[in-house]
């Protein structure tokens, strides 16, 4: 569509210029000469930039620039594929690393060192809305499990923020109950504490 459009505008332009050439009206110009000129310059500049990026160029006209760019992009895509396959292959044949365990041990120690305590706070702000704040020890994929637990209990979290500092994680969120009955803050607090303990 657009190409047809541009082709047609091109042909229109030639027609308009042609009309001018035919001596219709000496002052008859393209309707928006400056805009058209700017458009062409924009395209020309961008083509120059494209040419500067492509290392192998044959001729220097519009068609071959585009052609060479296509070739180059395909080449790069193939390289990316080859490299990523290589990486996958290397990954599958390499051994497991023992690092994650160390991180977890460090996290607990750091928390104790800095005196951060595990805490759960729940505040009832509206009928079904609760603001919660959880400070807990940072463990691998704990956040995911927490979110899953929330979803399975029918809580929806909106406006969630998670921060990590010195081995501790702070989750603050707005909890909305899916079911429209009123939720007691205390119940939720106990529930959350249980959840945190279990994950």
């Amino acid at each position, binding site marked *: *569509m*657009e*190409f047809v459009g*541009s*082709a047609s505008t*091109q042909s229109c332009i030639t027609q308009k210029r042609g009309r001018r050439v035919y001596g219709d009206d000496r002052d008859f110009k393209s309707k928006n000469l400056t805009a058209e000129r700017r*458009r062409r310059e924009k*395209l020309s500049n*961008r*083509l120059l930039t*494209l040419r500067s*990026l*492509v*290392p*192998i160029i*044959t001729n220097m006209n*519009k*068609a*071959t620039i*585009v*052609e060479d*760019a*296509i*070739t*180059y*992009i*395909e*080449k*790069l*895509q*193939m*390289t*990316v594929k*080859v*490299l*990523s396959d*290589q*990486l996958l292959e*290397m*990954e599958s044949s*390499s*051994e497991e*690393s023992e*690092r994650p365990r160390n991180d977890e041990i460090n996290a607990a120690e750091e928390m104790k060192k800095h005196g951060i305590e595990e805490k759960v706070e729940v505040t009832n702000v509206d009928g079904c809305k609760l603001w919660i704040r959880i400070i807990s020890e940072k463990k*691998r*994929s704990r*956040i*995911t499990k927490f*979110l*899953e637990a929330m979803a399975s209990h029918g809580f*929806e*979290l*909106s*406006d*969630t*923020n*998670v*921060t*990590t500092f010195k081995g501790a994680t702070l989750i603050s969120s707005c909890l909305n109950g*899916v079911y429209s009955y009123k939720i007691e803050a205390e119940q939720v607090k106990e529930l959350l504490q249980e959840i945190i303990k279990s994950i």
Partner: protein
Amino acid sequence: MYEETGCFDPNSMAEGGDDGISQSVKHHKEDDAAVSAIELELQKHLAFNVEDTHTQSISINSNTHSIHDPANQNHQILPPYEHSHSNWDSGVVSADHMGGFDQNENDQSQQSFINTDISSSFAQSQTPPLLNLLQFPRCTTSSMLPPNSSISFTNPDHHFPVPPPTSTDVLYDPLFHLNLPPQPQPPLFRELFQSIPHGYSFPASASRAAANSLFGEIGDERDATGAFYEDGDVGVHLDNRVLEFSRDLGCIGRRRETAGKPTKHFATERQRREQLNGKFKALKDLVPNPTKNDRASVVGDAIEYIKELLRTVNELKLLVEKKRCVRERRKRHRTEDDDEGMKPLVDPADQSYNSSLRSSWLQRKSKDTEVDVRIIDDEVTIKLVQRKKIDCLLFVSRVLDELQLDLHHVAGGHIGDYYSFLFNTKIYEGSSVYAGSIANKLIEVMDKQYAAVPPTSCAY
């Protein structure tokens, strides 16, 4: 075929300046077997009177038996001697001089003998043996040297005009039968190879080169030289190859489905326009996130995409290198009798790769999701904007766990019609994700979820 070995009697070798010749021969001591074979041949042909003719004759005879077949070709091997150059001009001599075997003159006989060699070979087929003489480099006994590459540096030493390169009917590789180990290519050839654009391959070995050669690598040299020889066409110049190649590149370009004609002859201006539009469309189809459809935007998108691909390639290279280094280090660790305290020294090469900062950035858009991934060293920042209302946090978090990314910070929420989130994560050590994989995985998961959710979802 001109047979020398039959009628040649080593005992009738004339005395003479054998020292000069043998010394020049002794220069090429790289491959003893070949050199000794050449030496013997030379001594035989140049009518030397070898010191120990007795032992030599025996060895010569045995050698001539073993290399009887290539002997004819070996006749043409004559390293360009400094003192015999002047005689090339009077090269074409009739075969009458063949009888000059038992002459006892020194240089004269040698030179005339050389001439007879040349002339006799000339008589057979005009240009190729001469070509081979030209080809033989001064310094190596490389058999894998393609003929054309050495013309450029041996030619100035010869005073006769280079015969036009014609295809020969005989595959001439004088030393080929000696099964020399492939010598390292002389520098000139390497330069010629490097002048060919990197990463592009000869059309014949396109797929192989893609697998083997990345940017900066010369690629499969052996295969390429093999390709030269498989031609059976000794006279083909590298220049011709380059011309063919550039022509072929054009052909590759034109062979694309969008470009119509193999040779650009436009019947009409309209066809030219249509071809050009087709190319722009092809460019647009390559780019992952096409925005507008007009030419300038297509080109702009292509520019961004090329830059992104270059970044990805660099990132992947770095990752592969790192993985390789880690592997090597682990192997070294295991092979040494090590205690934990002893760490193998890091090579400077390792360090240079590991110290370079890994940085990468790309954006991906799908119908409802926009993902922006930035990686600096081991920290990944992901920006996610989604249009529909599903609980994306959970899914994203799952994906990040799969990709071995450690969530450090999440911020975001509900903004009008959109969910917008910012994730700050760290890559667990040992994982080798790259920006493209993260983005693609996220988009994939998001789109899957959108597909799973029915169009009319309940508003919360």
